[in-house]
C-alpha cells in the first residue's frame, strides 16, 4: 500500500497551527521569565548562611528534577483544585508548572554561574565602594547572565519543546491543534510532518537568534 500525500487539508488549517506555535512560544518565554526569577532566588538561597533555607531549596530542586514533568502538570492542574485552589485556568496552571520546573533547572545553572564568578570582579566592585546589593546588581548579575547565556538558550529551547505537553490538558498549542486536525481530516502523516517541521524550524530559529545574542554579549573571550 502506498500512502497518498495530500497537504491541502493541512494548509487549510495552517493558520490554526501557526496560532498554536505562537501560543507555545509565549508559554515558553513566560515560563523562562518567571523561572529565571525563581531560579535566581533559589540560587541565592542555596548560598545562604541559613541551613533551613538551603535545605528547602535543595529539596525543591531535587523533587522537580527527579519527577516527570507531565506528572507535575497533572498534579498542578488536577491535584491543586482538590486542595481548594480553584482559580487557576489551564494556561495559568501550565505556566506555573513550567516556571517551577524551569526554576529548578535554572537554579543549578545560576548556582554554577555564581560559583564560577571570578573574585576579582567583586573585589574591584568593593574597592570603588559599592554596597553589597549594588555589587550584585551592577557587577555580579550582569556578568553571571553573560556567562550563563548559552545554558539559558538551551533551556529556552527545551522549554519550548516541553510546551507540547500542554496538549495533555487541552491547551491549544501546536501539538494539541495538530491532534485535532489529524482527528478531523485523517491525514496522519501530513499533519504530524507539518507540525514536526514547524517545531524544527522554530527551534533552529531560536538557536540561531540566541547565538547572535550570545556573541553580542560575550564578555570573556
Amino acid at each position, binding site marked *: 500500500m502506498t500512502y497518498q500525500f495530500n497537504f491541502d487539508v493541512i494548509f487549510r488549517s495552517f493558520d490554526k497551527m501557526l496560532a498554536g506555535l505562537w501560543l507555545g512560544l509565549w508559554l515558553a518565554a513566560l515560563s523562562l521569565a518567571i523561572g529565571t526569577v525563581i531560579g535566581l532566588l533559589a540560587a541565592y538561597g542555596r548560598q545562604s548562611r541559613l541551613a533551613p533555607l538551603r535545605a528547602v531549596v535543595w529539596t525543591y530542586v531535587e523533587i522537580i528534577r527527579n519527577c516527570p514533568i507531565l506528572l507535575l502538570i497533572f498534579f498542578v492542574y488536577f491535584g491543586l483544585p482538590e486542595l481548594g485552589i480553584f482559580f487557576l485556568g489551564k494556561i495559568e496552571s501550565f505556566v506555573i508548572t513550567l516556571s517551577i520546573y524551569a526554576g529548578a533547572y535554572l537554579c543549578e545553572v545560576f548556582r554554577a554561574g555564581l560559583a564560577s564568578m571570578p573574585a*576579582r570582579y567583586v573585589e*574591584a566592585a568593593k*574597592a570603588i565602594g559599592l554596597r553589597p546589593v549594588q555589587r550584585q546588581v551592577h557587577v555580579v548579575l550582569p556578568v553571571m547572565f553573560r556567562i550563563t547565556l548559552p545554558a539559558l538558550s538551551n533551556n529556552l529551547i527545551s522549554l519550548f519543546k516541553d510546551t507540547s505537553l500542554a496538549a495533555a490538558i487541552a491547551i491549544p498549542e501546536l501539538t494539541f491543534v495538530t491532534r485535532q486536525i489529524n482527528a478531523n481530516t485523517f491525514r496522519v502523516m501530513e499533519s504530524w510532518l507539518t507540525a514536526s517541521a514547524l517545531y524544527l524550524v522554530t527551534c533552529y530559529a531560536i538557536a540561531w537568534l540566541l547565538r547572535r545574542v550570545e556573541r553580542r*554579549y560575550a*564578555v570573556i573571550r
Partner: protein
Amino acid sequence: MAQPLLRAIDVHKRFGATEVLKGIDLEVQQGEVVAIIGASGSGKTTFLRCINLLEEFHQGEIQVDGERIGYTEGTHRRLGETAISAQRAKIGMVFQSYNLFPHMTAEQNVTLGLIKVQKRPKAEAVETARRWLDRVGLSERRGHYPYQLSGGQQQRVAIARAVAMEPKLVLFDEVTSALDPELVAEVLAVMQDLAKSGMTMLVVSHEMLFVREVATRVVFMEGGRIAEQGPPDALLVNPKSERLATFLGRFHGVFR
C-alpha cells in the same frame, strides 16, 4: 608635622595559624608617594588589602585621614557593610590583574562608582570619566570593552577608575607585573604623572628605577614586618641591613 593621611599602628593579620603581618607601623603624609618593596610572601599585598578592608585584620588599627578604618574603637568589632563601603570609596585601589568590569566599556567602568557611589549626575560623571581617560591617554578608547584593550590600556582604565573618584589615598599593587615588558612604561608614565600632581600613593612595586625616581620614601618589608625605610637614594644605594642588600642584589646594575 600635620596629621598623617594614613596611619597604621601595630597591624597584625593571620591566615589561619600563620601570622603574615606581625605588627606593621606606618605613617604616610598627604602628597607622599611611598613605595613598598620586599620579597615575595613578605606581606605587601596583604597589607594593602587590609587598608582597603578587602582583608580583615586581627589586631592594631588603621586610620585614613584621622578616621579609624573597618573596626569599632576598643572592641575591634568589624563595622557594618554600609560603613565599610563608604570608607572604601575614599580609598582607591589598582590591582595587578586590572579587574575591569568585563561587561562595561572603559567609560562605564569609570562612571559606575561616580554615579552609584558618589551619586553624581550622569552627565557630570561622563565628563569626569572622559577627562580622566584623556589624561591616561585613552580618549579614543572610551567606548571599548576590556577584551578589546591591551593589558597596558586596561590598567590605565583601571587607574582612571580609581582616581576619578578623587580618593584621599590610592593603593597600587604591582600594577605592572602582569604586563608585557613593552607595555610597562605607558602605565608607569601615568603613575608618575599622578605622583607629580600631588596624589598620595602607596605603591607596591618591583620596578626599582621607577621607585627610585618617583617615590618620596621606600619601605622594605620582610617577613610581615617593616625592616627598613627611608628616602630612595639612601635606602636603595646604601642599604643598612644585609637582607635588603641581598634583596636589592637581584636588581643588580640598576643602582650603580
